[in-house]
C-alpha cells in the first residue's frame, strides 16, 4: 500500500457526467486528484470506469468540468496488449511513436537514447526492439505498452485494467514494476481495476464506482480496513478473510430508493427510501453514499 | 417471415432506381449531340439541325435531375427509345430477343440443378472412390476454363468437325416457316410454341439447337453446385440424427430421399444464387459464340455500334432479371429455412 503526502491538486473534476442515449455512464462525479496520487478506481463491468478514463484523456465527450491545474501530459495503458500494440510495427517503432507525434523529436540519437532507457526501465532487453508484438509474451507486451507510455515523461498515467488480461503471477510483476516506476518518478497514476487486491497493493486513494456513481471514496487504508458501503464490503470480502462476514450477499429487492445500489443491497430497509443519495463525510477524505454506514463492522 | 419478405420487396424499387440513376449519369458524360441520336426514332443519321431540335426538345443541356426523372418515368412505362441496331424500338427488341435468352438460361439451369444434384449426392455417398475423385477433379477443372474457351472447343468439336450440331437457335427451314407465317410464335419460347403449333419437327430442331450452348453453360458453371452438394451431403451424413436413423434400421436411400436432400437445400440455394451472376455473364458469351439470338447478342451488337438506347435497355433488363432472380432465391430461402419462417 502506498501513501501520498502531496497536497497540490492536479485534476479537479466537478459534476462530471457522461450520457449515452438514454442512460448515464457516469453521473455527478466530483473528485479532486492530487499530484503523485495513485487513484484506484474500482468497479465491475458497466460501472463506468472506462468511460471515466476516456473522459479524463479527452477522447470522450462529457458534461461538467475536468480541469487540469497545470499543463499536464497524459498517457494511457490499455488492458489488452494484443490490441494496444500495432501487430505490424516493430517494438522500436511502437515506443518511438509518442516521441515523434507528441514531442516532435527528429534527432535519431535522442530518440534512440530515450527508447533504450525506457526499455530498460521496464525490465526488458534491448534486443526485443527489433521484434514484433506476436513474438512477445503477454507480460512482455504489457511492459512495452508501459515503456511507450513513459517515454515522453507524462505527468499523468491512466492504467485501464492493465493486469486483467495477464496471468496472476505476471500481473503481480507488472504491479511491482508500476510501483517502482511510481517511486522513481513524479507521476500521478489513475489505476482502474475490478481487482480490489491490486488496488490495495498500489493505490494511495480509492474510489468505488457502481453504475456510474461513486459509492465510496477515501484513502486506501480507510477503504480497505474500514469499508462503509455495503457494496465495498462485498468487494473486500473477496480478499480479506478476517472480516466478520455478516450475511453478505447480493439481494434482489424492490425499492423506491434513489440509492442506485438499493435493489441489490443486503442492508436495504424502508428508511433507505427517503435517502437523498448524497455523499456523506465520515472522516479525513473518507466519503460514502449510504446511510447504513454506522452498522458495518470490520 | 412476412416482415422479411416485405423488407426485401421494398428494397427492389430502390435498387432499381439506384441502378438506373447510375446508368443515366454515366450516359450523361457524353456530349448532348451524341445523346440526341439516342432520342431519335428514325433510322437515318441526323443532320446538325435535327440534332439541335432534339437537344431543345428534350432539354439535353438542362437540369440533369429533371431529365433523369423524365427518363425514368418513360422507362417504367416501357419506353426505352429506339435502337439503331435492330431497327425497331428497344422494347420491341427486348420482346424479340429476351425469350431466347430465358429459354437458354432455363434449359441450362435445370440440368445444373438436376444433374449437379445427382452427381454431388452420388459423389458424397461414394466418397473418396474413383467416381468421387473423377467428378470433383473434372468439375473443378472445367470451372477454371474461361467460358469462351469451353464454348469454342464445343463449337469446333460438334459443329466444325462432327457437324452434328449447328449454331443459332433454329435451322433455316424453321426460319422459313416462321417468316412465312406457318409457324406462329405465341410466347417466343420455341419449345412451348412448337408444342402449341403441334409441330414436332420444330420441337426437335429447337431442342437440338439448345443442347450445345446449354451444355457449354453447364460445363462452365456446375462445378461449384456439385461441390456444395457433395460437401453438404458429407456433412449431413456425419450428423447424429443420421446415425440414429441408421441404427433404427432405416434404408440408406430412404434416409437420403427424406432427410438429407431436404437439409442440404439451403446451402444449395445459397450457392445456386451466387452462381446466377456467373450464369448471366456466361450467357452473354455463349450467345456470342453460338450465334444465339438472345438479349446478350443484342446488347453486345448495340454496344459495338454505340447504340445507346439499345445498350441501356440491355443492361436494365439484365439487371432486372438479376434482381428478380435474387428475390426468388430469397423467397426460396424463406420457404425452406425454418429460422426465417417462424421469425
Amino acid at each position, binding site marked *: 500500500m502506498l501513501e501520498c503526502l502531496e497536497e497540490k491538486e492536479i485534476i479537479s473534476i466537478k459534476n462530471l457526467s457522461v450520457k449515452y442515449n438514454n442512460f448515464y455512464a457516469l453521473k455527478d462525479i466530483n473528485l479532486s486528484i492530487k499530484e503523485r496520487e495513485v487513484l484506484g478506481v474500482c468497479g465491475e463491468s458497466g460501472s463506468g470506469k472506462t468511460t471515466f478514463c476516456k473522459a479524463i484523456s479527452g477522447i470522450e465527450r462529457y458534461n461538467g468540468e475536468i480541469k487540469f491545474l497545470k499543463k499536464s501530459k497524459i498517457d494511457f495503458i490499455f488492458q489488452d496488449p494484443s490490441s494496444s500494440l*500495432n501487430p505490424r*510495427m516493430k517494438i522500436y517503432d511502437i515506443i518511438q*511513436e509518442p516521441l515523434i507525434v507528441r514531442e516532435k523529436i527528429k534527432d535519431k540519437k535522442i530518440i534512440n537514447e530515450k527508447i533504450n532507457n525506457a526499455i530498460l526501465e521496464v525490465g526488458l532487453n534491448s534486443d526485443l526492439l527489433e521484434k514484433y508484438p506476436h513474438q512477445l509474451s503477454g507480460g512482455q507486451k504489457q511492459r512495452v505498452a508501459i515503456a511507450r507510455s513513459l517515454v515522453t515523461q507524462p505527468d499523468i498515467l491512466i492504467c485501464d485494467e492493465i493486469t486483467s488480461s495477464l496471468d496472476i503471477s505476471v500481473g503481480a510483476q507488472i504491479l511491482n514494476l508500476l510501483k517502482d516506476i511510481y517511486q522513481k518518478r513524479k507521476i500521478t497514476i489513475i489505476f482502474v481495476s475490478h481487482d480490489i487486491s491490486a488496488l490495495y497493493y498500489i493505490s494511495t486513494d480509492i474510489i468505488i464506482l457502481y453504475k456510474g456513481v461513486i459509492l465510496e471514496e477515501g484513502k486506501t487504508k480507510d477503504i480497505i480496513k474500514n469499508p462503509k458501503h455495503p457494496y465495498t464490503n462485498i468487494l473486500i470480502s473477496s480478499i480479506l478473510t478476517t472480516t466478520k462476514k455478516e450475511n453478505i450477499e447480493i439481494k434482489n429487492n424492490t425499492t423506491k430508493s434513489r440509492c442506485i445500489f438499493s435493489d441489490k443491497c443486503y442492508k436495504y430497509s424502508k428508511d433507505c427510501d427517503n435517502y437523498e443519495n448524497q455523499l456523506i463525510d465520515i472522516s479525513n477524505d473518507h466519503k460514502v453514499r449510504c446511510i447504513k454506514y454506522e452498522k458495518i463492522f470490520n | 417471415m412476412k416482415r422479411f419478405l416485405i423488407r426485401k420487396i421494398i428494397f427492389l424499387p430502390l435498387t432499381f432506381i439506384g441502378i438506373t440513376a447510375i446508368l443515366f449519369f454515366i450516359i450523361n458524360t457524353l456530349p448532348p449531340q451524341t445523346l440526341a441520336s439516342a432520342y431519335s426514332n428514325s433510322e437515318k443519321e441526323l443532320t446538325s439541325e435535327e440534332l439541335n431540335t432534339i437537344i431543345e426538345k428534350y432539354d439535353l443541356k438542362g437540369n440533369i435531375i429533371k431529365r433523369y426523372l423524365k427518363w425514368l418515368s418513360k422507362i417504367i412505362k416501357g419506353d426505352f427509345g429506339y435502337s439503331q441496331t435492330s431497327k425497331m424500338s428497344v422494347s420491341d427488341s427486348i420482346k424479340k430477343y429476351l425469350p431466347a435468352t430465358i429459354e437458354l438460361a432455363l434449359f441450362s439451369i435445370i440440368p445444373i440443378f438436376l444433374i449437379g444434384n445427382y452427381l454431388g449426392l452420388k459423389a458424397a455417398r461414394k466418397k473418396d472412390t474413383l467416381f468421387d475423385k473423377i467428378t470433383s477433379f473434372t468439375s473443378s477443372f472445367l470451372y477454371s*476454363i*474461361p467460358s469462351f*474457351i469451353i464454348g469454342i472447343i464445343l463449337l469446333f468439336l460438334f459443329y466444325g468437325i462432327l457437324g452434328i450440331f449447328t449454331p443459332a437457335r433454329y435451322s433455316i427451314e424453321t426460319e422459313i416457316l416462321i417468316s412465312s407465317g406457318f409457324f406462329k410464335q405465341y410466347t417466343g419460347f420455341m419449345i412451348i410454341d412448337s408444342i402449341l403449333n403441334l409441330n414436332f419437327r420444330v420441337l426437335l430442331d429447337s431442342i437440338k439447337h439448345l443442347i450445345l450452348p446449354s451444355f457449354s453453360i453447364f460445363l462452365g458453371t456446375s462445378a461449384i453446385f456439385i461441390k456444395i452438394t457433395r460437401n453438404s451431403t458429407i456433412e449431413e451424413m456425419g450428423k447424429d440424427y443420421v446415425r440414429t436413423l441408421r441404427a433404427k434400421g432405416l434404408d440408406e436411400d430412404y434416409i437420403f430421399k427424406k432427410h438429407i436432400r431436404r437439409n442440404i437445400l439451403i446451402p444449395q440455394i445459397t450457392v445456386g444464387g451466387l452462381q446466377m451472376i456467373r450464369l448471366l455473364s456466361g450467357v*452473354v458469351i455463349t450467345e456470342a459464340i453460338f450465334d444465339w439470338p438472345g438479349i446478350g447478342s443484342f446488347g453486345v451488337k448495340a454496344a*459495338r455500334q454505340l*447504340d445507346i438506347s439499345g445498350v441501356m435497355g440491355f443492361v436494365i433488363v439484365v*439487371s432486372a432479371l438479376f434482381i428478380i432472380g435474387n428475390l426468388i432465391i430469397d423467397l426460396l430461402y424463406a420457404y425452406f429455412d425454418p429460422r426465417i419462417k417462424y421469425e
Partner: protein
Amino acid sequence: MNKIKEIIKKLWQNKKTRFGLIVFSFYLIIAIIAPIIAPPYRENDPYIVKQTGFSAIPQKPSLKSPFGTTQNQYDIFYALVWGTRMIFKITAKVIIISLLIGIILGGVSGYFGGIIDEIIMRFTDIILSIPSLILAIFVIAILGPGIEKVVIAISFVWWPGYARIFRSEILKIKSMDFIKYSQMIGAKTLWIFKKHIIPNAIYNVIILASLDISNIVIIASSLSFLGLGSPPGYSDWGQIISVSRNWIISGLSSIEYSHTVVIPSLFIFFFVFSLNIISETLRDIFDPKLN
C-alpha cells in the same frame, strides 16, 4: 517485401502450386521477351499481328509460323506472344487503378463513417448489383471500343469490391486500442492512416487482388472477344478466339484446321489454370491467419 518472399517459398513447396508458379513465370517471361521471340511486324505498333501471306485459308504450323496461321494469314504465334504482353499490361493497369480508387474510397468510408460512408456504400452496392461483364459492356458502349477503354471499364466495375473489403478491414482496426492510443496522443489522421491503418488493412485487399487476376484476364479477353476491345488485326487473346470462331462459323472448318482452335485455347487455358492453382493455395495460406 519479406512477406512476399515467404509466400512464394510456401507456394513453391506445394507441388501443385509449384507447377502453377512455373507456368505463370513462363508466361511472364514470354511477355517480357516478346520483342525478341516475335520481332515487331510494324514498327509504329508492335501489337498489329504479323501477316505472312495473302491466302484466306489458315495454314498449318510450319517453320515459318510455329503455331500456324488463321484465315488471312495472321500468325498465331505472334498474336499469342504479343497478346500475352497485352494481357499483362491490361491486368496490371486494372489492378493498380481499381486498388487505388478502392482503397481511397473504402478508406474514407470506413474511417470517417457517417453519411459519407452511407453514400459510398450505396454506390458500391449498386455497381456490385449488376453483373460485371454486363456493366463493363455498358461502359464501353459509352466510351467506345479500345484497349484503354477496356481498362477503364473493368476498373470501374472492379473497384467497389476492393473498397468494401478495405472498409471492413478498417472497421475492424478502428476499434483496436492502438488506434485509440495514437488518437489520444494527438496523432493526425494522415499519420494514423499511414502508420497503422493501411499496413494492417491492406493485407487482405492485396490478397484479394492477387486472387482476382484470373478473373480480370477472363473479363478482358471476353470483352475483346465480343469485339469491344482492341481493333481488328490486333494481338489480343479475345480477338484470336474470335477470329478462330469466325473460321468455324464459316462452315469451311474441319479437323484440318484444329490448330486454329486448339493452340490458342490451350495457350490461354494454361495461363488461367496456373493462376487458379496459385489462387487456391494462396487462399489456404491466408485463411487461418484471417481467422
